[in-house]
Each structure stands twice: as C-alpha cells, then as structure tokens.
C-alpha cells in the first residue's frame, strides 16, 4: 500500500468458528488509521510544554517575598540594560 507511512493502518480481525473457518459464527472487525500529526507533532509538543511548565512551577511558590525579589531583580537588570 502506497500511503502506509502516512496512515499507519491497524486492522484487527477476530473470528470464532465451530468446525471450519469458512463458516464463521461471530466476527469482530476493527480498523484504525493513525493521525500522524497528532501523534508525531502535537503529542511530543504537548509533553514538552507540560514538562517545562512543571519545572517552572518551582517559581510559583506563592510567597510574596519571593515575588518581590523577582521583581527587584528584573528591575535591576532592566535598569542595567537601559543605562
């Protein structure tokens, strides 16, 4: 199949029969086409963003003093750059 790389099709067939495979009593069929963009681009990207935000959570300690320090340092850096 030409588009195998794109679709990555998966097909499952389960059949039950009593005496001969030609006379199936129950048949279960399932087919699935993978959405390459979801699995190859967005899922890793999602994982990356969530991972980075988890790390950044350390900054969000909820302590006002810490935030004041951050603001002070930012201000200092900005002033240093501006002058």
């Amino acid at each position, binding site marked *: 199949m030409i588009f195998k790389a*794109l679709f990555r099709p998966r097909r499952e067939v389960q059949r039950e029969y009593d005496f001969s495979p030609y006379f199936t009593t129950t048949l279960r069929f399932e*087919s699935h086409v993978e959405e390459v963009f979801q699995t190859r*681009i*967005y899922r890793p990207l999602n994982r990356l963003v969530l991972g980075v935000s988890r790390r950044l959570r350390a900054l969000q300690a909820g302590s006002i003093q810490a935030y004041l320090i951050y603001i002070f340092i930012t201000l200092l850096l900005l002033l240093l750059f501006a002058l």
Partner: protein
Amino acid sequence: MNIQPFSLLVLSLCGYVIGAAGSLLFMRREKLANVFSFGVGSLSALGGLLAALAYLSAGPGAAVSKVDLLPSFIPYIQFTVRLDPLGAFFLLIVSLLGVALSIYSLGYARGFYGRKNVGVLGAFFNLLLLATTVVFLAGNAFFFLIAWEIMALTAYCLVSFEHEKVETRNAGVLFFIMSHIGTGCLILGFLLLFQASGSYDFDGFHLLGNTMSPGKRDAAFLLFLVGFGVKAGIVPLHIWLPAAHPVAPSNVSALMSGVIIKTGIYGLTRVLFDFLGTPPNWWGVTVLSIGTISAVLGVLYALMEHDLKRLLAYHSIENIGIILMGLGASLMFLHSGHPALASLALIAGLYHTINHAVFKALLFLGAGAVLHATHTRNMEEMGGLAKRMRWTALFFLVGAVAISALPPLNGFVSEWLTYQSLLQGFGTTTSLVRIMFPISGAMLALTGALAAACFVKAFGITFLAQPRSDHAAQAHEASFTMLLGQGILTAACVFLGLFPAIFLKWLDPVTQQLTGQQISAQLSAANGLVLSNTAAQGGTVSMLGLALLGLSLLAVPLVLWLLFATRAKTRRGPTWDCGLRGLTPQMEYTATGFSNQSG
C-alpha cells in the same frame, strides 16, 4: 457611488444585534426565540448581501466608505467600519451563507426543543454572524482583533453547544487553544506593522511592507501566516478542524466551514496583497507549497473517514489548500512582475473561496438533515436515504458534484482558473522554483480525482442501496425551511457554475484594489458565454456549452432504448443473490471497504 449600500450594511449590523438580544429575551419561549432570532438573522444577512452586491456591481470606481460605529475613548483605537472591494467580496460570502443558514436553522433548531436552549443557540448564531461580518469590515487593527476574538469565543460556545458529551468538550477546548495561539501571532504581527506606520489604521498599512526592513517584513509574514493559518486550517495547524466541525450543530458546522475558516483566507489576502507590498519569491513558494500539501493530505485523510461530518471537515482542509495554491501562485507572479497573471491566480483563489463556502455549507446542511433523520454520523449505519429523503439527496448530489470539480458546476470553474494560472507559471521565471508550478498542477489533478472518489463513496454509501440500520430505514425528509436553505445554496452553486462571466465582473474591483488590474473582460469571450484565457497558451471553456452537452447526452440512452429495447423481449426475475435468501444490507459495500486501507 452614493452611500446607499453602506447604510444598508449598518442596518444589517444592527439587525444582528437585535436578533441576538431578542433571542436572549425570549429564551423561555423556545418557539418564539427560534423564529425571532433566525428570522431577524436571515433578514440582516439579506441586507448585507444586497449591500455587497450593490457595492461590487457598481464597478471598480466605487469609493471606500467609512464610519465610526462608536466614539473612540482610547488613543489608536477607532471602531471604524470600512467597506472596500476586498471586504465587500467577503461580506458577500458571509451574507449569502447567513441567509441560507438562518433559514435552514429555523427548521433545524426544532430538533433541540425541550432538550437544549434554542434562545442561546440563536443569540450566539447572530453574534457569530455579526462578529464575522465586522472582521471583514474592520478598518483598524485593534477593532479587527476585538471582532476576531468575539468571533472565536462565540464559535467556541457554538461548538460546545452540546457540551454533555466529552468529545464535544474536548473538541471545543482544542479549538479554543489553537485559536489563541493564532491570535497571539496576529497581535505580534500587527505590532510590527504599528511600529512601522505609527497608527493602527488599515489605511495607513497600505503597501507598508515596501518601507519596512526585510527582516521585520519576513517576520511579519511568518507571524501572519501562522496566525491566519490556524484559522484557515492549513496543514500542520489543522488538527482542530476535524475535531470541532463534526461535534458542532450542523448549521454551525456549515458556518464554521463556510465562513469562519475563510476569515483566515481574508486575513492572508488582506495582509499579503494590501499591507506587505511586493513579495520576495520565497513567500509565494511557501504559500504554494503549504497549499499543495494541505490539499493532498486533506483529501487523503478524508478518504479514510466514515464519519460523514469528519469527512467533510477534512475536505475543508483540502479546499483551503486549493485556495492557497491560487494565492501562492499569485504572490510568485507579483514577484516576477506579471500583474495580469497575478490577478488571474488571485481570482482563481477568491473564486474558489466563495465556491467552497457555498458547496461546503450545502454539504454540511445535507449532512445535518441526514443526522437529524438518522441520529448518527457513521456512514456505515446509513444507506438507502435517497428513497426517503429525495430532495436532500438531490441537493447533496449537486454539492458533491460541485466539490469534485466536475463541470458544469462552480467547483470546476475555479479549479480550471487555478490550472490555467499554474500551467502558465512555468514560463514566467527562469529560476529553479518554477518546477513548483507543474508539481502543484499535478497534485491538484490528483486531489481532484481523489475528491471525486471520496464523494462517490460519501453519496453512494449514505444515500444509495438498502438501509444498514433501523434509524436509516425510518428516516424522514427534512422540513421545508431546511430544504429551502439547501435550495438557496444549490441555486448559488449552479449560478456560479453556469454564469462565471457575470460573477468575474464583480471581482474586478477586488483585483483593481490589490493588483491594479482588471481582467474580467479578457477572461470572458462571446458575450460572456465562453470563459477564455487570452494568454498565448491559454485554454477556453464554455460552462453553458458543457451543461448543454451533458443534457444532450441524456438523449443518447433514450434513442438507444427506442431503437433496441422496445423491440426486445422483457423478462422479469429476482436479482441474483448468490443463491441466498434475498439481498440484505450485509452484502453491500461498506464505507471502509470502499477506501480499503490495507489492500
């Protein structure tokens, strides 16, 4: 040109507000809310439609009219509504669909009685039409972004209308996130433009790119490409589209697919042709490549779907790709200094924009009627609906023929124009990128063939043969208003297909504004009966001729029947069923089998 179309337009904007407010006011009485909101909505859209038609048919001389809707309290922000040719063209699209969809909704919303709040649906529907109209008419970047965000929010509310289902909620959130990534890029892009011009007025942005530094110009191009591309649904930013379109109510899906994703096309056209000036070559190449990839991948994924509305959603990606092929080719011609060819490619893209809006909305309305009747989106549970839903089947068939780009309907005209511009592109430049033109042309041909195959499947599995489920067997025809909505769009498909010369004249003001050329006179020959490309290797096609040829071919089987069948012996017997006990739905081709993925 007098102020008349413009005052009609302002009236129509007020109409949407009244429709939304009244709908909320009558929320407790669902029938009244339904009739009021969608009735007022269709009248307002009709006003917009007439305004757009009057403006475009007045010819390229019509002045740009402007008015401030609200007094401005904040510096830089003016709430300016501005009617210019490009805006008027997109106003035509949103208003035409607004009329048809509002009428359709009168019947469709009855399905929600007692179950969901129709007043809320009507209010958001009117608000979405209002916001989308304002997006096309805003004359100030801030006002544009405000309308853009209201549009995204109301669209989110409408997509999540049936929020009891997990699938719907997830799709809504995905749309919301993607949409905001896009808006973030747009804000940055407009800030870059503001830096260069010193105001947020669209008038001040005109051809601004020629005075910007190349680095900032390229950055602005990329930001706008991503920002508008998310809304348009280009690959790889398309993932929200097949998730959000199917779960929305069908009138909303039609509006999303017909108009909302076109706001991305509007934005790209506005920015690339109006603001950013003469493009470097790689812009055109990028847009053309993205268009080609989107078209092919969109149709390939569509072929694998057996959820009717998801299938249509993937086709939207395909058609956005075809539109972008036209725009990309046009940019490349502008770069190489061929304004006439650039206008041809631009017209091809814009023509396909309105065509796709019309036939895709028509198909979604058909899918909505089917969904209304069978309560399933899975094609494997449909079948045999043509006998029970005659009119819906006919309208859906017209839409399917149009989207497959078969003559004599509208899809053929715009794809023909796209081919014409692509095929002529090879000779316009000597650089290696000219190889893009034949590649894109071939890909477009592949796309068209696959789309036709896909709609043979969509129509055949859904409407023909025997019903595959009890729901399909008990299906009933849609109500009159639902059929009327589909009928209007069907008529639009036929008009745009058979009389392209009339419509091309209305595009003259747009190309005059964006490329400085008017080419409708060159494109039509023999008093507008024949569509012809007057360039050296240009082609010629007559849509009416093709239609007449098709009709006259109908006579052939009649003649053959008269000659042979009337004299032949007739024998009646049961259809051969391999010796089993009668034909059952189990023997039918399935949607999965039709596009067998592993064979």
